[in-house]
């Protein structure tokens, strides 16, 4: 994948990465604060809840123990025992009075303790009962049909869990405390005190204004009273296994049938047989952290928006110069008006602008010079075309002269003109700089033959060239100046002379020796003379220019008289 920093627009990159960074930091902050505070809140909540549960446990225990104690004392009450044992059966009035006494005493108890919903006495022969009263006398044999019967089966006394009891006021939700009344090891009745579960629930709720979910468990862990939103019996049975010790806290997840994710705190007092359990929905515990996270998120969003605006402004500050530069580059044209870049930047952008401006100036200069050169070239081309016409004109003229010389029977002149034509052709040689040695030697031969005609055969020349050398290349007209020098100066005022040209290949060097038997080498003389001096200097410079200082020209007097010139050149098998 391509590095995005090489792909996307710089302002998008700048803006996007800055924004992403801030969002990332904020998200991490929110998450950390949420998880830390929710953990902290859960700990605080469970500690407080345990304290509260202990207090509530005390309160409830106090009430329930009171009921138990009342039940105990009433079950020992003489008038009740007398009624149940049938001690007063002999006299119906006395039995009736017995009922009234028991009823009155139990009614007083019920009236003075709002917690008590009603009291049932189960006995044999329960006459004078009143179904509209709080106090009921019921048939002992029917006791097993009542809801609480199950709980008392193995005990002398027991609490039932909460249930709906039908009374003359309709269905009333109660907890029943049942106690068997034994006399001489014989069951003679039950005293059942029904406690208003609503009042116990109020205690269990702890006068709390918010809805709470609490369960009260008996010794065997069975729920006997519950308020709020609590799990069903099956779920509860599975949770109970997790409650070790007298108090503790654990968390249940959502997967356990129906119950939402909750924190469960339970506590049992040392002096109580009840265990109170509180379930708090996890969402409630983390409410604070959620709120905190929300606040942070809101602040985060605001600051992100703010930062985005700032980032935008900032990135614009950074990208505007670059955009300007890019725009200037896009719209650049050599001719015409170009975008002006601001000149008040003194930082890197300034350097960039300055560099760009300098480059543009340089480019303009170069283009200008190119244009000039192009113009020169054009002129040169025209000149060269003109120059190409001149030789033809010259050849034609020479040809005409030749014909005139033949017509006038001037054999020598005709011959000279012919040789001159050949010399011209070689010296022009299509404008090439290099020619073969053979061509060079031919050119020399032509020149020297013209001189022979002039000197009437008293001029001799000899070429000593090994077979393979004539095909090597040398710069054009490199020997001619020396030969001309020998003829013009060496044989000056003389009627004869001889020239030797010897070529030798020494490794990759070509040695060319030009000797004459003329007046000899006269260095002082050269200063006075222009033409020959120019020619030789020209040769020296050309060699130096073409091949460097390893090659060159040496000259000096010849031992037998005359001059020796030695040229050293590279062996060139092809035109370089």
């Amino acid at each position: 994948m391509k590095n995005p920093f090489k792909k996307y627009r710089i302002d998008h990159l700048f803006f996007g990465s800055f924004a992403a960074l801030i969002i990332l930091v904020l998200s991490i902050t929110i998450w950390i604060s949420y998880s830390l505070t929710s953990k902290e809140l859960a700990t605080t909540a469970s500690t407080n809840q345990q304290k509260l549960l202990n207090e509530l446990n005390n309160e409830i225990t106090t009430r329930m123990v009171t009921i138990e104690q009342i039940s105990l004392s009433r079950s020992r009450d003489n008038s009740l025992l007398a009624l149940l044992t049938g001690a007063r059966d002999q006299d119906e009035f006395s039995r009736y009075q017995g009922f009234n006494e028991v009823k009155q005493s139990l009614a007083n108890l019920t009236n003075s303790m709002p917690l008590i919903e009603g009291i049932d006495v189960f006995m044999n022969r329960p006459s004078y009962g009143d179904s509209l009263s709080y106090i009921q006398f019921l048939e002992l044999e029917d006791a097993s049909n009542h809801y609480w019967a199950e709980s008392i089966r193995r005990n002398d006394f027991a609490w039932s869990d909460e249930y709906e009891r039908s009374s003359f006021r309709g269905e009333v939700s109660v907890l029943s405390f049942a106690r068997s009344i034994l006399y001489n090891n014989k069951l003679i009745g039950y005293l059942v005190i029904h406690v208003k579960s609503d009042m116990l629930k109020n205690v269990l709720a702890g006068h709390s204004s918010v809805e709470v979910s609490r369960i009260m468990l008996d010794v065997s862990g069975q729920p006997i009273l519950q308020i709020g939103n609590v799990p069903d019996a099956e779920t509860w049975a599975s949770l109970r296994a997790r409650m070790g010790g007298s108090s503790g806290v654990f968390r249940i997840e959502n997967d356990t049938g129906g119950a939402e994710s909750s924190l469960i705190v339970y506590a049992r007092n040392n002096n109580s047989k009840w265990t109170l359990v509180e379930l708090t929905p996890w969402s409630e515990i983390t409410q604070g952290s959620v709120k905190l996270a929300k606040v942070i998120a809101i602040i985060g969003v605001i600051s992100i928006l703010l930062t985005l605006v700032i980032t935008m402004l900032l990135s614009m500050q950074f990208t505007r110069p670059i955009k300007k530069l890019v725009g200037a580059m896009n719209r650049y044209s050599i001719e015409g008006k170009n975008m002006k870049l601001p000149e008040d930047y003194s930082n890197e952008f300034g350097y960039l602008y300055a560099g760009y401006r300098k480059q543009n100036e340089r480019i303009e200069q170069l283009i200008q010079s190119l244009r000039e050169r192009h113009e020169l070239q054009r002129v040169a081309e025209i000149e060269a075309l003109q120059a190409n016409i001149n030789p033809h004109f010259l050849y034609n003229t020479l040809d005409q002269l030749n014909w005139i010389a033949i017509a006038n029977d001037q054999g020598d002149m005709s011959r000279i003109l012919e040789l001159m034509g050949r010399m011209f052709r070689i010296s022009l040689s299509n404008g090439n700089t290099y020619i073969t040695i053979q061509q060079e030697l031919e050119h020399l031969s032509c020149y020297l033959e013209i001189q022979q005609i002039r000197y009437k055969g008293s001029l001799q020349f000899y070429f000593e060239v090994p077979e393979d050398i004539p095909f090597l290349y040398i710069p054009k007209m490199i020997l001619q100046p020396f030969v001309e020098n020998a003829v013009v100066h060496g044989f000056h005022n003389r009627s004869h002379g001889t020239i030797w040209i010897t070529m030798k290949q020494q490794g990759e060097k070509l040695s060319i020796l030009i000797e004459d038997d003329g007046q000899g080498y006269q260095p002082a003389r050269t200063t006075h003379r222009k033409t020959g001096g120019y020619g030789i200097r020209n040769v020296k410079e050309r060699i130096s220019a073409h091949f460097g200082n390893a090659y060159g020209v040496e000259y000096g007097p010849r031992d037998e008289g005359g001059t020796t010139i030695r040229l050293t050149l590279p062996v060139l098998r092809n035109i370089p």
Partner: protein
Amino acid sequence: MVMRRRIAYLAAAAFLAIVLSACSSGNDTIPTRPQDGESVKLRIMWWGAQSRHEVTLRALEAYTKANPHVTFEPEYSGMDGYLDKLSTQAAAQNAPDIFQIDPSWVADWASRNQLIDMTDAIDLTNIDAKLTSIGYIDNKLYGVPLGSVAHGMIYDKAAMEKLGLSVPSMGWTWDEFFQYAVDAKVKLGGNQYLTKDYAGDYFAYSAYQYAHGKGQLITNDGKFNVDRTTFLDWAMRWQTLREDGVIPPADVNASDKEFDPAADLLVKGNILIRLAFNSSFGAWDSMNPGAYALVTMPRAEEAGGWLKPSLFFGISPFSKNAEEAKKFVNWFINSQEAGEILGTSRGVPVNAKVAAAIESSLSDADRAGMELYNATQKHGQQWSPGASGWTNWVDKDWSLVRDELSFGKKTPEQAFDALQKLAKEYGK
């Protein structure tokens, strides 16, 4: 550089804001107690039969609907044990905000500072001054009358017709009553009787003594006024019936519980006639629809029955919501809506306008009650709440004497002596 520094400041400020908001939001989570505001819960207690419970509960619902901030915690039961319960709660200063009392208790309860003055809160414009006068103690209104009832008898018309008995007629006499008991027994089964044993019944004897022109059992100024001759005559008549097996034996008599479908002897078919207030007719009628009818209390030289204010509402001095309670009581007696719901469950509405307005919409049971009411109104005794301070004599001492007479533990003379002796505890 300047730009970058500004960003740094902004970031720092944002972070600070987050930290601060974290702290402040932490404080926010401390739960604040919701303002109780206007929402009040009134405890209200009354006694009566099932039919009265039903309409009263409906009236409470209607009131809550119109005044959503007021809810009720009703406590209701039969008459039996009611006074005990109310007294016990009052002793604990835990009486309900509003409670129903008998007109004869008003003076007692007011003198014990268990009722508050409602003078300013209750509109008595359309209410008969004879009824309201009972609620006034020292020119302060302590009890508000809820209705007016006639005291008479209910009889099982269907059963009587089936047995070929003539049904009692309005304006019958005590002599006819006792003769009827004897005559009817011939046609009745072994465990069936015309009437239960009313020998020791305070209200039955009151009617008897009234009918014989001997006035109230306790005079308005608090004097024992049981006429010995009349009482012995009365008790002896019952003793004869008891000995002849014309009235139920004591244990059956004692097992009778008014309005209890399983224990009410009239409902069970053990007896054919019993004392009744016209307001309670509906309660019996609902248990055995169409079977019963009402008849006036038997008379002698004078009429035996009387009209009386049935019940009163009082408000506990320990009520935390006395103002709301007063408003409710005012609504209960003066609003037509309440009148329509309640009918004559507590007697004929005390507010004349309400009574007139609902007349057309009365149920058949209510109409039957109205017949007795109208019949009694023509020939009725003047009822008086009696002197204050005798509640226990009426409620407890008479009950004992009743049972002793029924079980044959006391002779009529002994019973009279016992009542007279016990009365000395109360006399001024």
